[in-house]
């Protein structure tokens, strides 16, 4: 069978499963007695095993199988949750992830065996204190298997029971029902075996519930069996009734009915199954078998999934482009028609406007993904880091449900990892130092996401030592980035900005995690490439907070269109603070830099025509129009010739050939079909 068509689904689902395993293991570490979590882990591991085996990834299946064994032992209280155990399980996850990555890249699982992990898993099992019981069980099987060997004439009679089946049987017996194993042999001359089988099944189903069949029910229906098959049923009726009923069906040659006891072991041979047995036996004698029941219920229940469709992001991009085109055409229609528009025309246009807006919102929403998909790997990361560096750190996350455009989500992971590592490594002080400064020994890192207007803010805050502004200032002077006098006049904010310069590190020693000075400038570049900004607030001794501000969407924005000379440019509305009209003599010169005063603060002036090399005739007008734009806290005044108006624009890339131009963020198509360039405010300030 060709599995390639399922590969993508396999990859996606495995990713999700690994993620949820990660989360559950973390939970388990905190609450070792939480059976619900353990059950969930078991369920996911089991699914993973099944999936990888189906896809033919035998090494993955092997690893998950051994994991399952350990989890099983955990669940039946044979072993206790320990940090060592959790560590090994996490290692398993990492190994599985490596397999998955190899599958993604090469569609083969690679040839790493991870024998040491498998060994570690098996060691855990070997050292378990209930060893003796296990041995006894094994003996029991051996005894049993002799008995079974007697009726091996009917080869299907050795129906293998897994734990789930056994649980169901136990539960049924508990409720006073009969569990029966019925082996049916059909007449050799039987022509329509499947039809016969169908009638038998119908008869059985009238009185009972079929738990298992050998061969599988589907196979039986497809006539993929010889002349005999075995079914396992639970029923309120006893075996006599079935014997009578089944005898009435023609062409049934032989009926063997065997009553099952809750303790019977039917040809179990694998260690897991033995334990399943033991486990379930316990549950019957236990005072409260409720737990076991729940477990059965949860195994039966399908994992909760909404009705969803997986869509290739490219298809969404196409949809997005089409919506963009529609908006452009709408704008164009709005502009045409002249003065003698009829009322119906205006109404139709208004209606069209409403629909396109809704359509746009809908498409945008489809592309939105909660930041949770990025956040959920961080608890594990912080756990590992805090173990590595020996600091106790608690990560508190909030706002995981905040949604961002898919393209942003894909890019935001790395910068956040950088920031979190920085926070753990540089920010949080060692325990003794924390104690000395009167803080609790446990360091706290907060990761928050929330929406504010048309932006999403993500904050990484830590209650560590804060950034020593003076040492940054010193470092900047040492590096010759700035001369002494200017350095001393710089504000705290300006000094902190040096941290975002390439290869600027204040860490005294380089650790594995951070300190090589390649961190923050990468963070900054990445965030700015996404159209966002990074800011830092810090207080020495109290901690610092990195604030990432990202646009909600990337593709369609509100912009102000302006004229510079004959050319039209778009400035994103989100970065505009205000528009001022000033007389030319209000522009002053400070150190050859043109500035203006805006509500008592000095704002540098940028003449767009000069920066953009626009050819135009100098003309003297009474008032100069200045668009005040902001980048974080910093303001700048862009001098333009005139304003055209506010418009919804679709951002298009300029393509590879022109990607190196700094001052232009992209282009958009105007209603008249012409192209206007979008200014990159960040690089112009």
């Amino acid at each position, binding site marked *: 069978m060709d599995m390639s068509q399922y590969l993508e689904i396999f990859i996606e689902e495995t990713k999700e499963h690994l993620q949820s395993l990660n989360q559950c293991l973390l939970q388990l570490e905190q609450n070792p007695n939480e059976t619900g979590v353990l059950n969930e882990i078991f369920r996911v591991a089991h699914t993973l095993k099944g999936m990888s085996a189906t896809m033919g990834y035998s090494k993955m299946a092997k690893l998950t199988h051994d994991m399952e064994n350990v989890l099983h032992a955990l669940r039946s209280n044979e072993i206790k949750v320990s940090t060592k155990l959790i560590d090994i399980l996490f290692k398993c996850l990492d190994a599985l992830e490596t397999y998955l990555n190899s599958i993604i890249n090469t569609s083969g699982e690679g040839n790493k065996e991870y024998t040491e992990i498998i060994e570690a898993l098996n060691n855990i099992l070997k050292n378990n204190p209930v060893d003796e019981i296990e041995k006894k069980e094994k003996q029991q099987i051996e005894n049993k298997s002799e008995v079974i060997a007697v009726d091996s004439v009917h080869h299907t009679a050795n129906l293998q029971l897994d734990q789930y089946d056994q649980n169901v049987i136990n539960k049924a017996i508990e409720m006073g029902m009969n569990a029966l194993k019925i082996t049916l042999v059909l007449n050799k001359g039987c022509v329509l075996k499947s039809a016969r089988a169908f009638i038998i099944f119908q008869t059985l189903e009238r009185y009972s519930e079929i738990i298992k069949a050998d061969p599988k029910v589907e196979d039986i229906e497809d006539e993929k069996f010889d002349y005999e098959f075995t079914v396992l049923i639970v029923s309120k009726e006893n075996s006599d009734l079935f014997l009578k009923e089944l005898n009435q069906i023609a062409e049934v040659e032989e009926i063997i009915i065997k009553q099952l006891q809750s303790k019977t072991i039917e040809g179990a041979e694998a260690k897991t199954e033995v334990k399943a047995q033991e486990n379930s036996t316990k549950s019957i004698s236990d005072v409260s078998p409720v737990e076991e029941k729940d477990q059965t219920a949860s195994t039966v229940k399908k994992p909760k999934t909404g009705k969803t469709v997986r869509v290739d992001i490219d298809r969404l991009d196409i949809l997005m482009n089409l919506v963009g085109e529609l908006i452009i055409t709408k704008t164009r229609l709005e502009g045409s028609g002249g003065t003698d528009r009829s009322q119906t025309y205006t109404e139709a246009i208004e209606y069209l406007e409403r629909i396109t807006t809704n359509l746009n919102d809908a498409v945008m929403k489809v592309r939105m993904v909660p930041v949770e998909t990025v956040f959920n790997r961080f608890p594990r990361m912080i756990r590992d880091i805090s173990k590595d560096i020996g600091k106790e750190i608690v990560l508190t996350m909030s706002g995981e449900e905040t949604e961002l455009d898919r393209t942003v989500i894909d890019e935001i992971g790395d910068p956040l990892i950088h920031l979190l590592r920085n926070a753990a490594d540089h920010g949080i002080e060692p325990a003794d130092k924390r104690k000395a400064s009167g803080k609790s020994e446990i360091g706290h890192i907060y990761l928050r996401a929330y929406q504010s207007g048309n932006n999403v803010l993500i904050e990484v805050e830590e209650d560590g030592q804060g950034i020593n502004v003076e040492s940054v200032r010193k470092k900047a002077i040492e590096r010759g980035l700035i001369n002494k006098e200017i350095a001393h006049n710089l504000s705290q904010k300006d000094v902190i900005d040096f941290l975002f310069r390439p290869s600027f590190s204040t860490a005294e020693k380089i650790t594995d995690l951070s300190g090589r000075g390649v961190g923050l400038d990468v963070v900054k570049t990445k965030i700015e490439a996404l159209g966002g900004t990074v800011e830092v607030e810090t207080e020495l001794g109290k901690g610092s907070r990195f604030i990432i501000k990202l646009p909600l969407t990337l593709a369609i924005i509100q912009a102000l269109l302006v004229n510079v000379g004959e050319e039209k440019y778009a400035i994103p509305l989100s970065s505009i603070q205000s528009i001022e009209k000033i007389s030319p003599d209000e522009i002053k010169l400070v150190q050859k830099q043109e500035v203006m005063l805006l509500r008592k603060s000095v704002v540098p002036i940028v003449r767009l025509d000069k920066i953009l*090399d626009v050819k135009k005739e100098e003309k003297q007008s009474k008032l100069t129009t200045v668009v005040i734009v902001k980048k974080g806290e910093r303001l700048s005044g862009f001098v333009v010739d005139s304003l055209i108006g506010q418009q919804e624009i679709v951002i*298009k890339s300029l393509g590879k050939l*022109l990607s190196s131009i700094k001052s232009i963020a992209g282009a958009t198509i105007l209603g008249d079909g012409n*192209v206007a360039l979008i200014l990159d405010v960040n690089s112009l300030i």
Partner: protein
Amino acid sequence: MEEIINEKTKQFIVFKLGKEEYGIDIQKITTIEQMKTITRVPKIPVFIKGVINLRGEIIPIMDLRSKFNLPEAEETEDTRIIIVNIEEEPVGIIVDAVAEVLSLTEEAIENLNNLSTDLSMEFILGVGKVDDRIITLLNIEKLITL
């Protein structure tokens, strides 16, 4: 019919720049468009004129005249933009006029490698000779590097 197209024949679009004739492999060409309004983009190499909107797509436009150091020409009714695909990215080039589609056998293409070592010759694939015409065949990938 003498002109049977066998596997050794290549088709070229022939266009004019001034008095010279150039050819581009037809496989590389997406469409040929009428002249459109070009939006100037600041801070780009001089031989790139700007960008156009081609059915919703923004496409950079190159001026071959300035790339080949030819004097600027007035835009006429014959001026065309040839859209070529370079590594999946569309790029437009302005030409004075598009003349014809020409089939050339391998024998009719003369390799120029032994004629000159000049670097600027890198983007010239060879020279096609048809009757008494000489057509410079361009290697468009070498001409436009992303």
